[in-house]
């Protein structure tokens, strides 16, 4: 049933469900009208039938609402108590037998507690909880659930098994990549990049380019910085494939950590303006094959103002003092507020000669470039935000 909810065709299914619900409603009115044959006027008969059906639905809704709320409150209170008990037991090293007994009796509560524990614990504590899960009765069920069709259960199973290190669990998670529901495949990708085996991680990293932007952002944050990731990034940045290069640069921007391998400087001259934009945005975190000036100077003269603006910003981050003259030109000429703003902030960040030059822009007359320079100096003097992210 939950497969319907996760279906890509849910909107169409929903229309049928709505029509079905209305048809049921109308059928109820017709049936009740049939029982009211003693009412001669057909309009009145149907109106009364309508009222009766409404009253019945109303009563059912209210009853269902109140009873379900009451039962849920009771269930949640009991669930919370059992979870507290399980958490206490998990915290004690000598309580394995009791935990396993409770796991057999209350599998859902046990899995909830274990899921939280595996998410928050590390090291030996994490290993101990994983071993308990492996030895528990619900573990077998989790493995079976990953092969099921209902996405909700599969997702829950994957998110738990994804935190285990045994081959059986990893194989089960990997199966999730082939599940018909996209939500399950997404959960499997998350689990694999966090802690899957090497082949599976490579497979997921290779598929990054075809994933939607927001999912890439999440995966970027989850993937650990190790040799697999470095190999992947190095290969992609040297690939010449703009789409893949853009994804790699997005990764660098998300993580904001310096790359440990040299990046080809040719990216700064890419024909694709998006690549140039992202390259200069990520430049403070890139290790280049050549001197940084070899890309910054062309960047500051790029035909696209966005590239120039980001190159200017990079000048501030990388303290490219030799390019202060060009930053000054950009600030004073004022072709675009963002470009002039970045140039002015970069000059301010350079300090010394850059700062003096910025002062001269402020003192040299009026105009938008002048106002932007004044704003930047003001922020700098007040110890403000300086060079922005």
């Amino acid at each position, binding site marked *: 049933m*939950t497969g319907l*909810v*996760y279906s890509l065709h*849910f*909107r169409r299914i*929903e229309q049928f*469900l*709505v029509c079905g*619900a*209305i048809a049921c*409603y109308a059928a109820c009115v017709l049936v009740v009208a049939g029982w009211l044959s003693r009412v001669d006027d057909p309009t*009145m008969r149907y*109106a*009364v039938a*309508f*009222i009766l059906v*409404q*009253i019945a*639905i*109303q009563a059912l*809704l*209210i009853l*269902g*609402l*109140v009873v*379900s*709320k*009451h039962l849920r*409150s009771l269930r949640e209170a009991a669930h919370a108590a059992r979870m507290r008990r399980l958490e206490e037991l998990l915290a004690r090293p000598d309580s394995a037998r009791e935990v396993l007994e409770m796991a057999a009796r209350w599998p859902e509560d046990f899995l909830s507690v274990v899921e939280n524990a595996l*998410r928050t614990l590390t090291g030996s504590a994490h290993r101990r909880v994983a071993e308990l899960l492996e030895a528990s009765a619900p573990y077998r069920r989790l493995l079976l659930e990953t092969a099921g069709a209902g*996405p*909700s259960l599969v997702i829950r199973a994957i998110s738990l098994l994804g935190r285990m290190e045994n081959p059986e669990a990893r194989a089960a998670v990997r199966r999730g990549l082939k599940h018909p529901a996209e*939500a399950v495949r997404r959960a499997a990708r998350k689990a694999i990049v966090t802690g899957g085996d090497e082949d599976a991680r490579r497979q997921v990293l290779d598929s990054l380019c075809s994933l*939607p*932007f*927001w999912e890439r*952002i*999440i995966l*970027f*944050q*989850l993937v650990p910085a190790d040799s697999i990731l470095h190999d992947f990034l190095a290969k992609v940045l040297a690939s010449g494939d703009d789409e893949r290069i853009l994804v790699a640069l*997005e990764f660098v*921007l*998300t993580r*904001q950590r310096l790359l440990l391998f040299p990046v080809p400087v040719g990216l700064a001259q890419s024909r694709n303006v998006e690549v140039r934009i992202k390259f200069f945005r990520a430049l403070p975190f890139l290790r280049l094959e050549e001197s940084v000036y070899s890309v910054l100077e062309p960047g500051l003269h790029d035909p696209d103002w966005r590239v120039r603006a980001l190159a200017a910003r990079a000048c501030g981050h990388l303290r490219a003092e030799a390019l202060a003259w060009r930053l000054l030109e950009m600030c004073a000429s004022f072709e675009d*507020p963002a470009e002039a*703003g970045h140039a002015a902030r970069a000059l301010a960040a350079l300090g010394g000669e850059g700062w003096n030059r910025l002062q001269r822009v402020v003192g040299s007359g009026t105009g*938008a470039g002048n*106002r*932007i320079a*004044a*704003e930047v100096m*003001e*922020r700098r003097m*007040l*110890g*403000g*935000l300086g060079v922005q*992210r």
Partner: protein
Amino acid sequence: MNLPLRHWFLDVLVVYEYWVIFYLFVLSTIYFILVLVGFFEMVRHRFTRRDAEENSVLEASALVPPVSVLAPAYNEEATIRESVRALLMLSYPQFEVIVINDGSKDATLRLLIEEFHLYRSARYYESTLPAKPVRAVYESMDPIPLIVVDKRNGGKADALNVGINVARYPLVCAVDSDSLLESDALLRVARPFLEDPKRVLAVGGIVRVANGCATAAGRVLSVDLPRSWIARFQVVEYLRSFLGGRVAFSAFNCLLVVSGAFGLFSKSAVLAVGGYRTSTVGEDMELIVRLHHWARLRRKDYRIVFQPDPVCWTQVPESLKILKRQRNRWQRGTLETLWLHRSMILRPSFGILGLFAFPYFALFEGLGPAVELTGYLLTIAGFCLRLFDWQVALTFFLATVLYGMILSVGSVVLEELSTSRYPHVRNLLLLVAAGILENLGFRQLLTLWRAQAFWDLLRGKKHWGVMERQGFGQPVPAPKAAGRV
């Protein structure tokens, strides 16, 4: 009156009365369908909503687009410090809060300057959207992303336009400065922009009633129902409107309203349509309709989305006098927008928007109160003239009222399905009672006020009216204008 004429008049009366009954039946059926669609959407949302873990991951990402939060303020000295502090505490990777002091006559600006150590800044901005002159821009000496713009009074729309001019980020979030956003609301409301960055133009979040809730330091600590029945009726009304109506309209990409109290917009799209219109009192609805109009005319593939989980808490009026002013203004805003964009009605090129959503709004939200009110008056006239059998009239009245009750109770079911914010069975029982009772007088009163708004609009009434707010926690009167439901 001669006899044939009298007969003719009476016939017209009877026919009109039956037409009104038919009209109310169709209206209730449409509401019923909307609640049903809302129900299935909420079921889906409940299963597929992303977990908190993903939000915390996104919170740390530099690729999440930065947001400028715009908070227009007019005479807000009672709540402004708490509200701004709450906005500054939002969980979001990169954002700036722009408070636009719209010529307040009280100490709003002075309090902001003192509280947040503001200095008169040389911040550069371009006056892309025309607006009343800016007197000064202030920024904080502390490392907080707060900008305060002091300008001449020009109304909420004018203040928002100034905010958009000053904003530096690609997304702008319009909020009421006396509403409280939940800490993750911005991240949740921005989610559609991440998921579908090229198509999404605007996203609205849910506005919930804060009366009765315990608040501290700009946060809602515990949720409860208000003590006053007027406010309780509004709780049900808000639930029905947001979880029923908006979820359903959003599902078919024909959402016509994003509440002025909480909406996130693509700045470039808002600039492309010329910003907020200052000549209407319903600037929030008008902007959304104009975005639709603009995008459909250019055959753009776009989406305007409602998200049920980013929550904005707001105070609703507890006095009939203030409520009347608010509803009068909302109705005038709706009518003005419908009139301004009347060319969209029944135009196949506008798709479901022109063929369903706009006619629905025109026929039922715009003209509905006038039709319903005349229906009530004619029923009374029919009784006096002995035209109707009282049993027939009562039957049809009951049928309509019960239909309304089912919708109200249905919206409480939707609330339970979505976030289940009200913790106790007692809360649910009170909500159900409010859902039933609102159909026995309150709804009719709103109809009367909304019909009066039609008349006021014809008379050329343009002002907002004074809206007294209780403030969060303590009763403080403040003239204010809130976003519509």
